[in-house]
């Protein structure tokens, strides 16, 4: 096994185990910590793909900002020991896991079957994931989507303040 593949397998195992913790753990705080580990593992995968800027953005936006939001809400709602509810529909859990396994088998067989048809790696320039490249394109060709996204974020901020505000 080559070095790059070994690194990828380690990152993949970390991401898989942490995602399993997110889904399985009964304590929401543990789920949140699993989610942080998963975000960091995916950020490492971004670095492996050569997208440095997106890897840094992933760490800042997801592992920083979004996780703080989640932990605040878990703290305010005092959800710590609330999730140990009796499973009222055990059939739902079994059916969901079965459906997940079936879907996974389907898409993985498609991926494995198509792997030979896909060229292993095409050369991209050395400035593939550099901030200069992304900034140049984001502020010229994608400037209108960028402005729309900023308006969306503004509306989201105002809306969430309005929703979470105490009435009266």
């Amino acid at each position: 096994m080559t070095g790059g593949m070994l690194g990828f397998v380690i990152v993949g195992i970390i991401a898989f185990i942490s995602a399993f913790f997110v889904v399985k753990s009964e304590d929401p705080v543990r789920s949140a910590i699993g989610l942080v580990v998963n975000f960091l593992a995916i950020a490492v995968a971004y670095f492996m793909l050569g997208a440095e800027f997106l890897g840094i953005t992933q760490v800042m936006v997801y592992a920083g900002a979004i996780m703080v939001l989640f932990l605040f809400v878990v703290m305010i709602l005092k959800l710590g020991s609330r999730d140990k509810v009796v499973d009222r529909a055990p059939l739902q859990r079994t059916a969901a896991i079965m459906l997940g396994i079936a879907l996974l088998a389907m898409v993985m067989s498609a991926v494995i079957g198509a792997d030979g048809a896909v060229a292993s790696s095409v050369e991209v320039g050395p400035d593939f994931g550099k901030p200069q490249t992304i900034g140049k394109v984001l502020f010229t060709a994608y400037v209108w989507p960028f402005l729309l996204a900023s308006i969306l974020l503004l509306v989201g901020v105002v809306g969430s303040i309005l929703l979470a505000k105490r009435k009266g």
Partner: protein
Amino acid sequence: MILPIATIVQQVPLGAFLGLGLTLFIMGGVGVLIRRNPVVVFMCIELMLNSVNLILLSFARYLPSGGAGESPMNSAVSGQMMVIFVMAIAAAEVAVGLGIIMAIFRSRNEVDIDDMSLLKS
């Protein structure tokens, strides 16, 4: 020892990144179906969004086509643009969704997905 980026990508096939992304996506989907705590359901949705980002980025890295260099239609660049916009949408979605959960908690003093059935006539 830090391997140069080009070496890593040459040693790992595209299918490996796709397999990781799809596995995480389906784990998130199963989590959305089986969990009852809405905050954890949101975490699973974030998991799904992240895995989609990983898949978009690996396609952008492995199959760049159309236009060369810094052309904005170059899929190596537009794939990264998609990831950036998905991140922005995800941030807005989390803010609004957690606000809704707070509002529900205020009015009912408990949060359980199965009890939120007011819209069901």
